[in-house]
């Protein structure tokens, strides 16, 4: 399967973060209209190779929105298994398809944010994860829900 079969050069006015290398906007953008796929020279099919970088622009949540786009990595781990990783938040999720992996990653971002926010005390890893999530997530204003 190729995630990057059709591509156009990224327009210069995009609000998405600039990544190193030659960037392309992918019209086969993993099926969701809120995911932008970039690629440079990555062979994302390689088990040990680099992840294909993606940018999430929404969380598909009724209650939460993103303050800024999230850079995630997507790779094909095995037959019928894709792994989406939000490395900054030390969070990974997998799925039978790229869409499944990304959907679970998005819902886990919201779920963990709510879980950690509701705790009085956290261990070192969840503390780090919450600090990162707070930089990216915000409650939607009531009118937007």
């Amino acid at each position, binding site marked *: 399967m190729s995630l990057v079969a059709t591509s156009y050069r990224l327009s210069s006015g995009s609000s998405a973060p600039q990544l190193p290398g030659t960037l392309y906007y992918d019209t086969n953008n993993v099926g969701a209209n809120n995911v932008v796929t970039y690629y440079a020279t990555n062979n994302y*099919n390689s*088990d040990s190779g680099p992840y294909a970088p993606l940018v999430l622009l929404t969380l598909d949540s009724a209650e939460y929105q993103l303050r800024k786009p999230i850079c995630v990595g997507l790779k*094909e*781990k*095995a*037959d*019928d*298994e894709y*792994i*989406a*990783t939000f*490395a900054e938040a*030390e*969070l*990974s*999720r*997998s*799925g*039978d398809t790229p869409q499944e*992996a990304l959907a*679970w990653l998005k*819902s*886990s971002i919201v*779920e*963990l944010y709510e*879980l*950690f926010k509701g*705790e009085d*005390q*956290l*261990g*070192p*890893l*969840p503390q780090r994860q919450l600090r990162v999530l707070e930089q990216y997530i915000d409650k939607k204003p009531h009118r937007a829900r």
Partner: protein
Amino acid sequence: MTKSRIERDDAYTIATKIGAEVQKAGKHARATLRMDGRIILTFGIRHGPKSGHGHLCGATGDLKMSETNVVALARCTMTKDQYFEFLKGKGVLPPPLPPSEPKGQKPPGPRKA
């Protein structure tokens, strides 16, 4: 490309072995490891019995260790204590809390001469 070596039952085995509580979370489940009431680690468990759990493996994976070590933890060659030692080395486990004083006991005052 080969199948993932970690499946749903391995993930449940690991949760039981390390004492993590498993809760349903949407379509999938979430295992939460607590120590002294504090959340130490969480990991996701997929619903399909044969579904791969590659997201548990690797430095950015939920369990913070290689696939070989995750297999070892699931299939008994790595003990809970060994895994906790590993987490300590990674800075995931907090330093132990100081022992609390028994209730009603006053701290020792200065000795009379």
